[in-house]
C-alpha cells in the first residue's frame, strides 16, 4: 500500500520541470558508497491484508474484555466514555501540528487553556502547563525545576514512590552533580518519617512524595511538606487524579509542584502509553515551568483569543538556556483528559472517586477473609492496596489465569524483600462477578 498521489506521468513532468532526467540525479550528492544497499524488509501489503494480520497479532494479547484487570501501579482500567474518542479522534485534532500558528490553531489553543484550567481546579494549584509525556517524566522535570530554582544539589526520594518513577528521576539527573537520598519504607508501608526528617538539610532542593503511594497508601503529606519547607526545600507531590474526587488536593496541603499520570483521565492503558503527565505549580514557579503553556489574549480587533505564551522559557527560543528540552506535549492525550473531566463535572468526579473507593474496600474486606491472605498495612487507601498472599506463586498465577483475572502485581519484581506481597487495583469497572472470580481464583490456589 502506498499513499502517494502523483502518477508516474506526474513525476516525469515534475522531473522535467526540475531539469533532471531521472530521480537518481536528485540524490547524486549522496556518496555512491552509501547508496549501494537494499532494505531487507517484507513486501508491502494491502489494507485488507494488513488489518487481518494485525487482528491476528492482537489475538496474542489478552485484553480487558477477555479478563478482569486488577492491575494498577500507574495505569488503570477505567471506563472511557464513547464521547472522548469520538471527539479527540476528529481529523482536525489528530492531524494538526503544535499550535505555533495561533490563528490556524484556536481549537487546540482554547482546549489547552481549558485543560490547564481543569487541571488547576482538580489539583488546587495555581498554574498548569499543557502536559508532559507521562507522570514519571513529569516528576523528573519537577525535580529539575527544584534544582534550578534552589541552586541546591540534593533530592529526597522515598522508596514508596513508584520504582519506575524513581528510576526516571535518577536517569534524568544522571549527568548532573546531584545526590539522590532514598528514604526507606516504615513497617506500615509509608515512608519512614523519622529518617526523612534527618535526611532533609540546607542542601535539599526538594522532597518528593507519591500520594497515594505505590502501595496505594496515603502518606502523611501535610507533615512531610512542613519538614521540606522548614529546610527551604520544595515539596513535590505526585498524585492520582481520580483520587482527588475525595482526597485533599495538593494545592491545599502545601505542595509547591504537583504532578501526576493523566492516563486515568480518559486514556486507554495501551500497554503503557501514550498517556500524558500533568504538571502544576504555585505562582512563584510559573516562569520556571517546563513545556508549553497556552494563554488568553485578544486579537487586533479585541476578540478573545488564545496563544502559546511565556515562550521565553522554551528551547526553540532559548536553545541551551531553556528550562527544559521538551518540545511537544502530549496534546491529544491531554485533550482526552479535558474532554473526560468536562464529561465528569464536579458531581461526577466525586461519584467516580466514591465508586473506586467502595469497590476497592469491598474487595479488600472480602479478600482478607480468605485463608492465607494477610494484611500488609492498616493505613488508609483509595483504590489500590497490598495484601500478603501465602500461596505458591506458580499455582496462584495458574489459578488467576484459569479464572480470567489479570493481576494482581507481585511486588517482589520491584521490592525483592516483599515476596508474597501483591498490589491490587480496583476501579469502577470491576463488577461483583469479577470479584467473585478473583476470590475463587485466590481460594483455589
Amino acid at each position, binding site marked *: *500500500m*502506498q499513499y502517494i*498521489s*502523483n502518477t508516474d506521468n*506526474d*513525476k516525469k513532468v515534475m522531473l522535467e520541470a*526540475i531539469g533532471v532526467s531521472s*530521480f537518481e540525479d536528485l540524490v547524486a*550528492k549522496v556518496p555512491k558508497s552509501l*547508496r549501494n544497499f*537494499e532494505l531487507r524488509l517484507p513486501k*508491502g501489503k494491502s489494507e485488507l491484508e*494488513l488489518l487481518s494480520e494485525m487482528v491476528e497479532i492482537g489475538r496474542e494479547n489478552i485484553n*480487558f474484555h477477555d479478563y478482569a484487570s486488577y*492491575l494498577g501501579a500507574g495505569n488503570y*482500567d477505567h471506563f472511557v466514555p464513547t464521547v472522548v*474518542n*469520538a*471527539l479527540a479522534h476528529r481529523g482536525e*485534532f489528530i*492531524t*494538526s501540528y*503544535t499550535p505555533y*500558528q*495561533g490563528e490556524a490553531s484556536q*481549537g*487546540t489553543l482554547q482546549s489547552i*487553556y481549558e485543560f490547564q484550567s481543569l487541571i488547576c481546579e482538580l489539583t488546587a494549584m495555581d498554574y498548569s502547563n499543557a502536559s508532559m*509525556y507521562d507522570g*514519571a*517524566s513529569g516528576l523528573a522535570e519537577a525535580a529539575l525545576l527544584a534544582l534550578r530554582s534552589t541552586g541546591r544539589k540534593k533530592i529526597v526520594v522515598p522508596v514508596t514512590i513508584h520504582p519506575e518513577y524513581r528510576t*526516571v528521576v535518577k536517569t534524568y539527573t*544522571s*549527568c548532573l552533580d546531584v545526590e539522590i537520598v532514598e528514604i526507606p519504607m516504615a513497617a506500615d508501608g509509608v515512608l519512614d518519617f523519622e529518617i526523612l526528617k534527618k535526611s532533609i538539610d540546607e542542601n535539599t532542593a526538594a522532597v518528593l512524595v507519591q500520594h497515594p503511594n505505590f502501595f496505594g497508601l496515603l502518606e502523611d503529606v501535610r507533615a512531610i511538606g512542613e519538614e521540606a519547607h522548614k529546610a527551604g526545600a520544595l515539596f513535590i507531590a505526585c498524585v492520582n487524579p481520580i483520587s482527588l474526587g475525595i*482526597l485533599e488536593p495538593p494545592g*491545599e496541603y502545601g505542595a509547591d509542584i504537583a504532578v501526576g499520570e493523566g492516563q486515568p483521565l480518559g486514556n486507554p492503558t*495501551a500497554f*503503557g*502509553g*501514550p498517556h*500524558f503527565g500533568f504538571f502544576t505549580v504555585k505562582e512563584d514557579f510559573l516562569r520556571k515551568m517546563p513545556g508549553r503553556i497556552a494563554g*488568553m489574549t485578544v*486579537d*487586533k480587533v479585541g*476578540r*478573545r483569543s488564545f496563544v502559546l505564551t511565556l515562550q*521565553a522559557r522554551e528551547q526553540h527560543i532559548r536553545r541551551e538556556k531553556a528550562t527544559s*528540552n521538551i518540545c511537544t*506535549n502530549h*496534546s*491529544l492525550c491531554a485533550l482526552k483528559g479535558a474532554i473526560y473531566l468536562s464529561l*465528569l*463535572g*464536579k*458531581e461526577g468526579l466525586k*461519584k467516580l472517586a*466514591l*465508586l473506586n473507593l*467502595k469497590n476497592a474496600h469491598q474487595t479488600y474486606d472480602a479478600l482478607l477473609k480468605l485463608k492465607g491472605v494477610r494484611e500488609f498495612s492498616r493505613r488508609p487507601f483509595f483504590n489500590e492496596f497490598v495484601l500478603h498472599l501465602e500461596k505458591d506463586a506458580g499455582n496462584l498465577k495458574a489459578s488467576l*489465569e484459569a479464572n480470567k483475572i489479570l493481576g494482581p502485581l507481585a511486588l517482589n519484581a520491584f521490592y525483592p524483600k516483599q515476596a508474597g506481597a501483591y498490589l491490587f487495583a480496583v476501579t469502577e469497572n470491576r463488577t461483583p462477578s469479577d470479584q467473585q472470580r478473583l476470590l475463587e481464583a485466590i481460594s483455589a490456589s
Partner: protein
Amino acid sequence: MSTPLALNRITDLLMNDSKAKVLSKNETRSRTPLIFERHSRNHAEWLPALEGHEETYLKSIPQDFLRKKEANLPSVSELEVVRHFTGLSQKNFSVDVNFYPLGSCTMKYNPKCLDAIASLSSFSLIHPYQEESLAQGALKILFEMQEYLSEITGMDEFTLQPAAGAHGELCGLLIAGAYHRARGSKKTKVLIPDSAHGTNPATAALCGYEVVTVKSNAKGLVDFDDLKSKLDSGVACLMMTNPNTLGLFEEDILEIAKAVHAVDGLVYYDGANMNALLGICRPGDMGFDIVHMNLHKTFAVPHGSGGPGSGPVGVKKHLIPFLPSPRVLKQKEKFLFEKQAPQSIGKLRSFYGNFGAIIRSYAYIKALGKEGLRAVSENAIINANYLRVRLKKMYDVPYDGICMHEFVMAATRQKKKGVRALDIAKRLLDYGVHAPTVYFPLIVEEAMMVEPTETESKETLDEFVQILEKIEKEIEQDPAIVLEAPHTTPVGRMDEVLAARQPNLRFKNS
C-alpha cells in the same frame, strides 16, 4: 486527487472582495464560550448510580485527608460537550483539511487504517504489567519494530522508549555520557551546527554539557574547517541532522564522522529529516553512532495537535549496553523483556514507550514494505525540488541547488517591499493553506521552510504556487491585505505581548 479547498477559498475571497464583509461573516463563529461558561446539568450518567452507602467508606479515611472544597469543574450535558469540542476542532487547520507544508515537521497524510488498528481493544486495552505470556502480540510488535528500525537506519539495536524527538535526544546524550564515563574519559562539550533545531542545544545543556556551535559554510553545509578547529579530546559528541535543516545533504558526512571518531567523540543523528532517506541511504552507514527517529514525522503517527509522538533511539554495537531498560528480546519463538541491564542509563519514562504510536508506525512499515518506503522518499524529494524550482522565480533561495525533502526560501525581495515572511505566512491561511515554517533555520533571514511531503499531488503544489503568485500581486497592489492578514480565520493576529505580560493561563470563577 484534487484539493479543491484552496481554490474554493480563492473564489470565496474573490466573491467577498470587501474585507469587511469577510470579517463580519466570520465574526459569528469567532467566539466559542469556554467550557466553564456553558451551563446545563450533568449527572455523569455514563457511570453507574451510587447506591447510597458509598460515603460510609469515606470513614476509613481521616478527615484531614479529605477534600473540603469541590473542584470547580464545569457542569455540562454530553451534547454540550460534543458541540463544544466539535466547534473547537473546526477552528484548527489540519492535514485532513489543509495543505500543510510546514518545514521540518513532515505533515504527511496519516493513513486512517492506522488509527483503527491502534484502537483495537487487543492493543488499546492491555496493561503494561500483564504477564509476558498474555501480551505476546504486543511484545512481538515491539521486538519487530526494533528490528525494522535497525534495518531502515543501518543501526545495530533500538530502544522504543523515548516519547518524542527531544526525548530521544535526551536518551542519546545520556547514552553518550554513560559510554564516555564507562571508558573513564572526561568529556565536557557537545558540538552543534548553527543550523540545528533548538532542542539539540537544549538537550546538551540538560545533560550538563557545554554547547559549542559549528558554523555553516557558503553552501549551507557544516563548515568542515570550523568543525576541525573545534574538535579536541573534550568533545563528547557532534549532533547533526542530515539532510540538514536547509534540506541539503551533508555531502562531507563520511569525513566528518571520521574526524569526530578520531578524537574519541560520538556522532549523533537527529532523525527529524529521515523522510528524505528511506531506502536511499542509511545514517548507520554514514558513521553515526546514535540516531533518533521521529515516528510522528517519517512513520505516519499523526501529530495530534502537538503529540503524542515517539522518538526511538538506535545505536551501534558498542553502545548497546547503555540503552534504556528493558529492551524486548526473542528467545525460542517467545518474546520477553530483558531482565538485567547493569550498564543501562535506566529509564526515561514509565513502561516501554508510546506503544499506541509505535503500533501505527509498525503497521505503516508493513503496509508500505521496502518498495513503498523508498517511494516515500523519492516522492518527497521530487515534490520539494519541483516546488523549489517553481518558486525560485518569486523567492530568493539562499542556498540554491538540488534539495532533499524540503528547502528554505527567503522573503528578502518581499521584505524590500515592506512585507515580511510572517505576513505571507498569515496571508496563506486566508487561502486555506497552512504556513511554512518561518524564521527557521536561524541562519537564513526571512526564512520560509517548505516541506510538501510525498503524499501531496502535483495539482496541490501547483495550486500552492498560484496562491503565492496571487499574494505576490497583492504585495504590489494592495500590501495592506497581506500586512493585516489573516482575515478569514476565527481570530486575527494576536497580542502576544499582552499574553506574556499579563498572563491569563486559566479560567477563574470569581
